[in-house]
């Protein structure tokens, strides 16, 4: 070690000059570069990206959150409310940043329109292959007795970017309404198209997708809609209509009066005011028991 005897004043002056000139050189160079090569970036893009949830789920229809941020800032025709998982809060923030008007969003949630679990339907054949609903579709359209039914191989559950779907013990997806952000990924991926987004405030659903005629449905499923039309007649609000042998609720009219729930002979219509029950594992009901035994009479 060279024994440089530090002389406080000498060292201080030297380092002041040295560092000062280093700073000056860098400063001038950087300032020159900053001015000479200035590019404008829109800071709003980053601002928007920061408020987006960052799940990159693609519900907005753009390539990830950044894609949407760029689009909503750069393109006047892109609305601020397209991020479904972000719900109204994010829409409002995005609107604020971009100066656009936030649309009024009706919060929605995913609902499974099939109750034909393993106990209420049967398998047409023994399936041997990839455990994925889309792959199972390739094999004679799936092994469920009802050709409209949920196949139960859980593709939606694996696809949900928010972990909102669990498969029940007897093979139907159960949606956690708290976690679901209505991103629509499951809706798009289900090969049987039995999932749809419904207004979160509405709890009465006709959970069947079969467009078969009544007798055909009865052959393959214990709980399917047979298109008998009793609910249509019974609904005091006129909210239900039959379409292709399947009853459908107009959610703008439904008032949760539950009349339909009680008249349905198949017990297809379900009231989910108490979602906890949905998750409870079911056991196969005895042959003659009411199909929906675990449901409290209302």
């Amino acid at each position, binding site marked *: 070690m060279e024994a440089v005897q530090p002389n406080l004043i000498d060292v201080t002056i030297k380092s002041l000059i040295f560092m000062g000139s280093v700073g000056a050189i860098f400063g001038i160079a950087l300032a020159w570069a900053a001015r000479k090569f200035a590019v404008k970036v829109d800071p709003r893009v980053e601002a928007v990206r920061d408020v987006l949830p960052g799940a990159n789920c693609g519900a907005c229809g753009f390539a990830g959150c950044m894609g949407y941020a760029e689009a909503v800032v750069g393109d006047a025709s892109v609305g601020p409310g397209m991020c479904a998982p972000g719900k109204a809060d994010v829409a409002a923030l995005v609107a604020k940043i971009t100066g656009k008007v936030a649309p009024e969003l009706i919060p929605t949630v995913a609902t499974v329109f099939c109750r034909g679990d393993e106990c209420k339907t*049967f398998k047409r*054949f*023994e399936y*041997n292959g990839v455990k994925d609903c889309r792959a199972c579709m390739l*094999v004679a359209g799936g092994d469920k007795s009802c050709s409209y039914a949920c196949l139960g191989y859980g593709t939606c559950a694996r696809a949900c970017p928010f972990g909102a779907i669990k498969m029940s013990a007897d093979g139907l997806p159960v949606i956690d309404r708290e976690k679901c952000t209505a991103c629509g990924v499951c809706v798009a991926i289900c090969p049987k198209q039995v999932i749809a987004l419904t207004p979160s405030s509405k709890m009465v659903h006709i959970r069947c997708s079969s467009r078969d005629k009544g007798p055909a449905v*009865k*052959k393959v*499923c*214990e709980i399917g809609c047979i298109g008998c039309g009793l609910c249509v007649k019974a609904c005091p609000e006129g909210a239900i209509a039959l379409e292709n042998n399947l009853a459908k609720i107009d959610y703008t009219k439904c008032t949760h009066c539950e009349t339909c729930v009680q008249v349905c002979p198949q017990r297809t219509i379900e009231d989910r005011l108490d979602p906890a029950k949905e998750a409870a594992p079911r056991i196969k009901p005895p042959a003659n028991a009411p199909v929906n035994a675990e449901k409290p009479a209302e």
Partner: protein
Amino acid sequence: MEEKAKDKKFLVSVGPHIRSNVSVPRIMWTVSAALAPAALVSVYYFGVHALLVIAACILACMAIEAATQKIMGVKVSVTDGSAFLTGLLLGMNLPAGVPLYLPVIGAAVAIVITKHLFGGLGYNIFNPALIGRAFLMASFPKLMTTWPIPAGGQMLVDAKTGATPLGILKEEGYQKLLAHFTGQQDMYTSMLFGNRGGSLGEVSVLAILLGGIFLIAKGYINWQIPVSFIGTVAGLTWVFGGDPVLAMLSGGLVLGAFFMATDYVTVPQLNRAQLAFGIGCGAITVLIRLKGGYPEGVCYAILLMNCLTPLLDRAFKPKKFGEAKAAA
């Protein structure tokens, strides 16, 4: 509905509806069987404790695999033989005299960290048995380099330290090693028949060769890796002025080239890529043997090439039908 559900149901799947009779368990058990003669030879030379070491490795691997799969909630598949084989190979990679907690630790590392953290059979990047060995080597270097002397026959290594031929070569040079034998011929034959110190699986080159050739003949392994691996070691050793025959016969080379550098899971799939893999293994082995801190480099060479496997898989792709013509 009830009635219909009771009908006898056909099995439906996408084709093909028949399969060849080669299955994963069959492969694994057959490879294990091919290794059995070598294991027996080492038990003959090293005695009961060798048997205990091998058995401990196998039992630990299988038990740990079953337990891990239980805990992770996946199908328990110990009967497929891959854990058995990993255990057997791990045992063959240890010195005969190690205390029996080493096999258990090695097995845990091989099965849990190297295999199941990656998703189990088929997904691991590194050779489990070799990682087990490298881990033990790093943790218990003294125990792992204490070589008991083979019991059978006249002994060929320094009775005091029980060093392996490669160890002697590294420490004291070729002439000293030769001095342990009556001549070069004697040295080669002793090595071939296993009459020497070393890990359990190093001792009988002949038995391992037989097993390896059996596997090649059955089509369970390709010739590419063993040939290019051993060939490169011999060639490079010769180029650098060593004894190529000794290089081929010593250390874990033959075991590694036939049974460990051929583990499907951790080596490239294509034949051309396998040639490159074997050459790489050979080059690193020679580098470590000649210049490195360790007397033997096979284990590390294979592990290092394991790292390169995904890259080799990227670099070598099968030639598509019609593609060459399209380019022309």
